[in-house]
């Protein structure tokens, strides 16, 4: 093998290795998205709360030695004109007990819309100790023009909640997902009743 063709072989080998790194990094960035979600779920960073929780009241007893204050905050995303607020601004609960609160929502526009509420919890160290057995944020709401709704939310603050956490703030942001999800066929807006579409 001549020196020159050996060099060409070496170059080819280097290029193959480097191309592998590039492909590997492409997979890495694709994997970042589920990894990020997993990381947030495990650590509770970002204030993401978990999905539906199965709660067996017979197995746990409330910790009556302390009370934790849970504050509820609501807001609507830009371009979302619904009314949305909690029936109670805050409740005091014993860790380990099941509690029900409710939220009021009304479609103030002249067209049917679908909404999705996104929760966020502060402090993030409490996120993994806040369980919801029932929540309107687990599903989407389709409301007719002017329709209003009481939405229940049933939650348990885990007994394992760190002692230094005395209050938890749970906020819900309501997003308009009408365009993204699409209305059912029979509710499609016809040309003569079009109102300005909000959002991007």
């Amino acid at each position, binding site marked *: 093998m001549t020196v020159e063709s050996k060099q060409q072989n070496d170059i080819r080998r280097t290029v193959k290795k480097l191309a592998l790194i*590039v492909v590997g990094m492409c997979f*890495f*960035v694709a994997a970042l998205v589920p990894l990020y979600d997993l990381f947030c779920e495990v650590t509770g960073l970002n204030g993401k709360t978990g999905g539906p929780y199965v709660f067996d009241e017979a197995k746990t007893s409330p910790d009556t030695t302390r009370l934790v204050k849970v504050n509820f905050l609501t807001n609507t995303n830009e371009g979302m004109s619904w009314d949305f607020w909690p029936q109670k601004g805050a409740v005091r609960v014993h860790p380990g007990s099941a509690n029900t609160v409710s939220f009021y929502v009304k479609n103030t526009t002249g067209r049917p819309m679908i909404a999705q509420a996104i929760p966020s919890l502060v402090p993030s160290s409490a996120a993994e100790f806040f369980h919801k057995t029932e929540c309107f944020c687990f599903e989407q709401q389709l409301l007719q023009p002017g329709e209003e709704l009481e939405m229940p939310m049933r939650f348990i603050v885990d007994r394992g909640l760190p002692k230094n956490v005395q209050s938890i703030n749970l906020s819900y942001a309501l997003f308009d997902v009408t365009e993204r999800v699409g209305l059912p066929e029979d509710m499609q807006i016809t040309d003569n009743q079009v109102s300005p579409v909000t959002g991007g």
Partner: protein
Amino acid sequence: MSEVIHADHHDDHAHGPAKGMLRWLYTTNHKDIGTLYLWFSFAMFLIGGAMALVIRTELFQPGLQFIEPEFFNQMTTNHGLIMVFGAIMPAFVGLANWLIPMQVGAPDMALPRMNNLSFWILPFAFSMMISTLFMEGGGPNFGWTFYAPLSTTYAPDSVTYFIFAVHLMGASSIMGSINIIATILNMRAPGMTLMKMPMFVWTWLITAYLLIAVMPVLAGAVTMMLFDIHFNTSFFNAAGGGDPVMFQHIFWFFGHPEVYIMILPAFGIVSHIIPTFARKQLFGYTSMVYAVASIAFLSFIVWAHHMFTVGMPLAGQLFFMYSTMLIAVPTGVKVFNWIATMWRGSMTFETPMLFAIAFVVLFTIGGLSGIMLAITPADYQYHDTYFVVAHFHYVLVPGALFSIIAAVYFWIPKWTGKMYDESLGKLHFWLSFVGVNVTFFPQHFSGLAGMPRRIPDYALQFADFNMISSVGAFIFGFSQVFFLYVLIKTIRSGAPAKARSWEGAKGLEWTLPSPAPYHSFTYPPEVKSEEVHG
């Protein structure tokens, strides 16, 4: 790929470039491509600079005088994108093309045809990006960091052009990097071991690995944007279960190594120029190599210091604060080594040396304000103010840019066979030095006093600092047009340069005649100990 590799086997041993303008389109010669890269980056530098002057004109006085806020946003965004991806990065690739084969004793780059492709993608990418400024709804206006949802939900329609332009730039950078690594690892002259390589080659080797690692991440980020905009996904859209903060994590996982991509080759250049004019061996060659490698490694674990205010847990803030501060250690090693190289040297102060010394001083100022920004609790005050603007302009303008200008003055006798006019070069240096400090130093103060970045109008108390800044910007801007004149004058009527153009210059490139022949080192040269850096 095999096609590209066989390009080296062509049998015509022409001794000069082809005739006509098409030569530049078809060329596979590393010197031609280096020249193309350098002129392209200079053109982009002037365009991006013109945008900076539009910004500074508007900011000369409080109130809205000249342009609409929407257009102002497009100017800040495009200024950033063009300077980062169009000026600094291609200029370093151009220098790599010109210098690496000559410095390692190779006849050309390892993959000459891919080299041609990676350059010729760039004009298309940037025409695409700049053309959006003339479209209905305007061009990118979301800042060079293009945070979602500004760049998705609220973006102008032209954002798709921007996304594809970024894809093209990424492809170009990846190809360029593969080429550089393949050249350095396989085409060194016999006897040039890794630890005998010139510092510029070392820094580019590490930079190229950084590029290969993070450019796919950038491509991934813009691809997710593309899907969010056009295919109804919700990577960054909270309503669909996505997370805008994830965009910032992904962007800065690319973005922080990217800022070192823009400074490591500068470290290499300065490590050539200072020993030459101090007439001494570079102090601490081995520690320089390890310092660059450690900076490159650390760049992957500090990204979230750009986003301390997103609401991170304490542990995260502490981790990113300490890891960021750790970077000061290898950087400090480099600065001390440069100073130790000058210590008791027989120094002369030709233009490249002036730019290199200014680099060391002013880059260190930028580095120190970086440490201030790394202090998490203090960052809450500095975040998104002009203090940040002052910080990154100090590391990029008198940092990266000064090193590029220094490199051009240092190696232009080798490239053209002509010497530049020393007094014009010195004038250019002093104008640039004064201009850059007058522009950016006051921004530290307006930032500390609370002036936010990316705004076309500001409170009255910032008026004086902004006026000074704008005056400095025009001095700096026009002194770069003067640089163009100095370059053209050199090429047209410079005095003939010697093969070893500088008395203290070391390295294989100085063993070639000036101008360097079209094909250098057809046969591997002997690596003599007096030409070795380590």
